[in-house]
């Protein structure tokens, strides 16, 4: 009895028997917090401080600038095209990989991961090589008066390439963990492929889909490298928000640059909150799943 009490005392707070002394815990937590503050919170605060350095009016004026508005519009447009494309592709790919076995499956998985392992600048260059004036399809495109590089289609293409792993990567392990039983049960009960997807598969993965979409969207709006290569930096026409930030910064309009950057920072914060909610919901779904096994 006495011994048990003595043991208890060590990990009193969390009720666990195995724990470090209080001083060590304190030090570890402080180190982690200090690191976060230095590398994450401080820069974030700096962005907003700089953005509002010249007051509210200057902030709003910077955002109202026609070139900036055009950049915001282009960024939204790019995301609005890329996210649905990659949502569709991601679900299809994840479904194929998780629910069927076929030749070349591991090759497909590797290919899906490719954009993660290739530098974004290279991703952009690929498109310049294919569609650019000196590229494979360049002369033909020029002859037919189709502009891809240094125009919106190029930006969309590069962004699609860079962001396509997000949804698929999120869904593959989730769908694999859920197995095929429910789909098979639905088919045997007479459901069609589409009915099976919308009534059985999708409800089980919806939070994972949302999670993937959030990450995909954040990256689509924030992508710099690949877009920078294909955009051509035409003001008011082919600049996205990240490119606009760079231009403003290089022109020493710090307040304006940070004002625009604060939009991206805000996006990051919103993403973080949504991501946490989605993650929590996925966990909930999985624990229900566990209960069923």
């Amino acid at each position: 009895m006495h011994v048990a009490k003595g043991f208890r005392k060590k990990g009193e707070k969390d009720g666990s028997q195995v724990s470090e002394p209080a001083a060590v815990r304190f030090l570890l937590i402080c180190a982690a917090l200090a690191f976060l503050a230095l590398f994450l919170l401080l820069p974030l605060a700096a962005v907003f401080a700089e953005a509002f350095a010249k007051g509210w009016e200057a902030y709003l004026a910077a955002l109202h600038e026609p070139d900036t508005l055009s950049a915001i519009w282009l960024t939204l447009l790019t995301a609005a095209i890329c996210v649905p494309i990659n949502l569709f592709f991601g679900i299809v790919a994840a479904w194929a990989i998780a629910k069927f076995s076929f030749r070349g499956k591991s090759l497909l998985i590797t290919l899906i991961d490719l954009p993660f392992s290739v530098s974004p600048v290279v991703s952009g260059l690929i498109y310049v090589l294919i569609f650019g004036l000196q590229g494979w399809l360049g002369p033909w495109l020029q002859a037919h008066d189709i502009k891809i590089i240094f125009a919106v289609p190029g930006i969309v293409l590069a962004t699609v390439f860079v962001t396509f792993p997000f949804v698929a990567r999120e869904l593959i392990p989730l769908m694999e963990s859920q197995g095929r039983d429910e789909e098979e049960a639905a088919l045997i009960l007479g459901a069609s492929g589409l009915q099976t997807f919308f009534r059985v598969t999708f409800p089980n993965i919806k939070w994972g889909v949302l999670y993937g979409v959030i990450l995909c969207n954040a990256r689509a709006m924030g992508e710099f490298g690949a877009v920078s290569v294909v955009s051509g930096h035409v003001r008011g026409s082919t600049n996205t928000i990240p490119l606009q930030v760079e231009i403003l910064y290089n022109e020493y309009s710090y307040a304006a640059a940070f004002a625009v950057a604060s939009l991206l920072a805000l996006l990051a914060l919103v993403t973080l909150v949504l991501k946490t909610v989605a993650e929590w919901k996925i966990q909930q779904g999985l624990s229900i799943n566990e209960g069923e096994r």
Partner: protein
Amino acid sequence: MSIEIEGVSKNFGQFAALSEVDLIVPSGELVALLGPSGSGKTTLLRIIAGLELPDTGRILFNGEETTKRDVRERHVGFVFQHYALFRHMTVFENIAFGLTVQPRKSRLKKADIRDKVFTLLKLIQLEQLWDRYPAQLSGGQRQRVALARALAVEPQVLLLDEPFGALDAKVRLELRRWLRRLHDEIHVTSVFVTHDQEEALEVANRIVVMSQGKIEQQGTPTEVYDRPATPFVFDFLGNVNLFQGRVHEGMAQMGGMEISSPEHAATNNVSAVGYVRSHDIEIERLSLDASSVQAEVRYILSVGPLVRVDLELSGGEGVEVDLPRDVADKLDLQVGEKVFARPRKVRIFTDDYQI
């Protein structure tokens, strides 16, 4: 509806899951596919359901070619080992699923679906839990919901894949009997897969014993238990003791015993294996003739109504004997005591039968 399986083979890569299987399931029967894991029983069930396609061979439902027919058009009910309930749907929605996905033309009206689901809920005795989610149910309840869901579409064939495998012993026993009674009521042709011989013997009308992708034997529970066709079946059904020996002109010599074996009258000094169930051995204090052999009691263990006695024969082989409690009490055996063991029923397989 009857099911005929003709020459069905299925390979997964190099692994032959089924080779040339022929089987007829008569209409209204409750058939158990019994075998160890890897024997192909689940693959056969999935081929009947249409979840897998056979590499060769045919499946006939009521004499009608069904091999290539789509899963959805086979009208089978399938109960999965892990239930496979739709986890985001309530019990009611799960059972109603098969009815609500029908094409609009042939779909029942909402009120009719409701009536039907509640009839089924009554059948599985879960009316109170219609609005629960699968995660809120116990294993036995989930399995009953899975069964009701399969029955809702009025299948012509009911297929069950290790239906009680994931349940604890007591629930399993209850559900077994319940399934037996249910089948007596609705008489739908049913096939269930199990690796539990007791379950197969208790529930099924017919047992099909499978091993390594082939059917070893089929017949009524009594037939396969009392007259196992192969050493494998003998070994798989119940506790069994093996004796190595030889047969010569109708007499077998094994483990120091002489046993007459009329069916091997024509053999000439062939090596053979004798199979004796553990409850088919008597223990005596005196040797009456050459069919008994001296043994030493090594271990005694009471298991409920039985007493299990481990003997070591004079030749060194170990033998397990199950005695009814009253017989054991009368004998009053002591560990280390010398006794005689006499097999009541020996089944002798000569080596050409070897597994």
